[in-house]
């Protein structure tokens, strides 16, 4: 590349001939200089043609170039065709078809495709709308640890309003606890408002007076979750899992309401939630980091209690959003429902699930939900068949081999609607008999050894024995 010995400034090309043309050069040197210039022009042309020159900043605006080496090219228009596929290492795809390019780049096609055969490393879970679970904690049966969270089952009262005694159950699995009686009533679908979308029922509470709650008093309803159903949460250990409680709530009152997670006396986590608009269903979600302390039941005893406050005194209430070694059942400053006569508080869709996200409600089949409830309580109502007594001809008898419909959580209590329970006994020869006394003998989780009964005289044997209209037998193994 000897042409570079020439300067781009003509006046500077004054080197000794033939490399330059200085002023006053000898005439005999002119032809030498011209011949040298001819040789340089030829050399430059051959270099471009043969690609032996490296062009440092070429600008190509058209035409065809082959066999030239460039170190930097600016292309301002036109197109490139007929070239060898650029390798992946050179920033290309190494392919001349889209399919081969995706293969070489390990890339999946966009839109509908069958390229994606597995997904790993997702940092955000697929939402339920995307066909995922919306959670990183796994999706499995019994997502919702609350039983009867949709308030569908009401074995005891069948939709009737009750003013519950403290400690008694209303809708299945939902217990009330209060220090003063008769301050609120409970009824499935009380007030007959339209349930939130996706639900048919709710638990409705109505305040029966304007009661000022004392500092040590409490008015609550709660669900006791059996230890077996929360054992996997690992509460009370370093591996305690985060859970999310969600529900839909509707009240004639607005403000901040309270509740608490509780292990039954020595550990609690008060929480608050807001109802901003009266008489409007509001979705609530409360995420709680699992408790690494305390003792939490993991068998058939109490596991976690979820308390909802209808009015609690200061000594029953704690700071919201923190675990405490005290037995709190609400959060400090929460609204008192029982403080306003006629105030209503409705709730449904209660769900407790693993993870920090509230997902859609786990709406289980009715039969499944009913049988889950029956582990804790069965109502044998009118028409429920019973075993025939052993000795038809006497007035004192035993009704043997009583079996529960569902195995119980623990040894149950047996309640007969009356000590003179009027079972409907039908004699083979016609006519009914009357039970004048009945008692349980030795209940177990499976059934009862026998029921001792006294009855009117049977003259022709029995062919049928059922619970009569208006009567019931309750088998309760509630927590």
């Amino acid at each position, binding site marked *: 590349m000897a042409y570079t010995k020439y300067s781009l400034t003509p006046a500077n090309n004054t080197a000794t001939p033939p490399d330059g043309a200085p002023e006053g050069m000898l005439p005999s040197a002119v032809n030498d200089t011209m011949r040298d210039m001819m040789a340089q022009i030829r050399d430059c042309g051959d270099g471009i043609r043969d690609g032996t020159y490296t062009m440092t900043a070429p600008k190509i605006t058209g035409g065809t170039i082959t066999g030239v080496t460039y170190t930097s090219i600016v292309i301002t228009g036109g197109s490139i065709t007929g070239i060898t596929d650029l390798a992946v290492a050179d920033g290309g795809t190494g392919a001349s078809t889209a399919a081969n390019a995706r293969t070489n780049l390990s890339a999946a096609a966009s839109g509908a495709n069958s390229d994606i055969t597995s997904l790993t490393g997702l940092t955000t879970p697929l939402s339920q709308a995307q066909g995922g679970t919306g959670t990183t904690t796994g999706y499995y049966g019994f997502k919702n640890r609350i039983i009867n969270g949709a308030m569908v089952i009401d074995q005891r009262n069948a939709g009737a309003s009750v003013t519950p005694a403290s*400690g008694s159950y209303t809708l299945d699995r939902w217990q009330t606890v209060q220090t003063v009686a008769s301050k609120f009533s409970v009824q499935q679908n009380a007030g007959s408002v339209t349930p939130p979308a996706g639900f048919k029922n709710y638990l409705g509470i109505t305040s029966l007076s304007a009661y000022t709650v004392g500092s040590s008093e409490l008015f609550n309803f709660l669900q006791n979750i059996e230890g077996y159903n929360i054992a996997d949460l690992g509460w009370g250990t370093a591996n305690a899992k985060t859970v999310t409680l969600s529900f839909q709530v509707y009240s004639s009152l607005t403000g901040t309401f309270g509740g608490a997670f509780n292990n039954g006396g020595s550990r609690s986590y008060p929480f608050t939630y807001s109802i901003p608009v009266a008489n409007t269903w509001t979705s609530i979600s409360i995420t709680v980091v699992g408790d690494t302390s305390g003792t939490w039941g993991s068998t*058939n*005893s109490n596991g976690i209690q979820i308390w909802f406050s209808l009015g609690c005194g200061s000594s029953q209430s704690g700071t919201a959003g923190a675990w405490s070694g005290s037995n709190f059942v609400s959060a400090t400053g929460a609204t008192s429902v029982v403080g306003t006569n006629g105030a209503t508080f409705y709730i449904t869709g209660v769900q407790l699930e693993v993870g920090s996200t509230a997902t859609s409600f786990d709406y289980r089949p009715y039969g499944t939900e009913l049988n889950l409830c029956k582990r804790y309580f069965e109502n044998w109502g009118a028409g429920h068949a019973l075993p025939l007594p052993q000795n038809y001809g006497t007035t004192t008898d035993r009704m043997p081999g009583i079996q529960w419909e569902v195995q119980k*959580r*623990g*040894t*149950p*209590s*047996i*309640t*007969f*609607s*009356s*000590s003179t329970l009027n079972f409907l006994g039908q004699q083979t020869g016609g006519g009914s008999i009357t039970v004048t006394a009945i*008692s*349980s*003998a*030795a*209940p177990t989780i499976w059934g009862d050894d026998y029921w*001792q009964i006294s009855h009117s005289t049977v003259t022709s044997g029995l062919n049928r024995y059922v619970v009569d209209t208006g009567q019931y037998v*309750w088998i*309760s*193994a*509630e*927590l």
Partner: protein
Amino acid sequence: MYKLIKNDDVIKMVLRIESNTFIPFALDNTDYQNFKKEVLAGAELQDVDGNVMTDVAEYVRTLP
């Protein structure tokens, strides 16, 4: 108000008279736990013959 119930010559349950509920002497029964708390707090307990018991605390200590 509670009354002890004897079956097959053994007392192994109590009747809560108000609700006509038969409560077994079983530690996993919530009603049984409440029965002990209530009679120790002063609720009436009758023996199998219907007599009001006066030494309730002593009796409860013999229960499971």
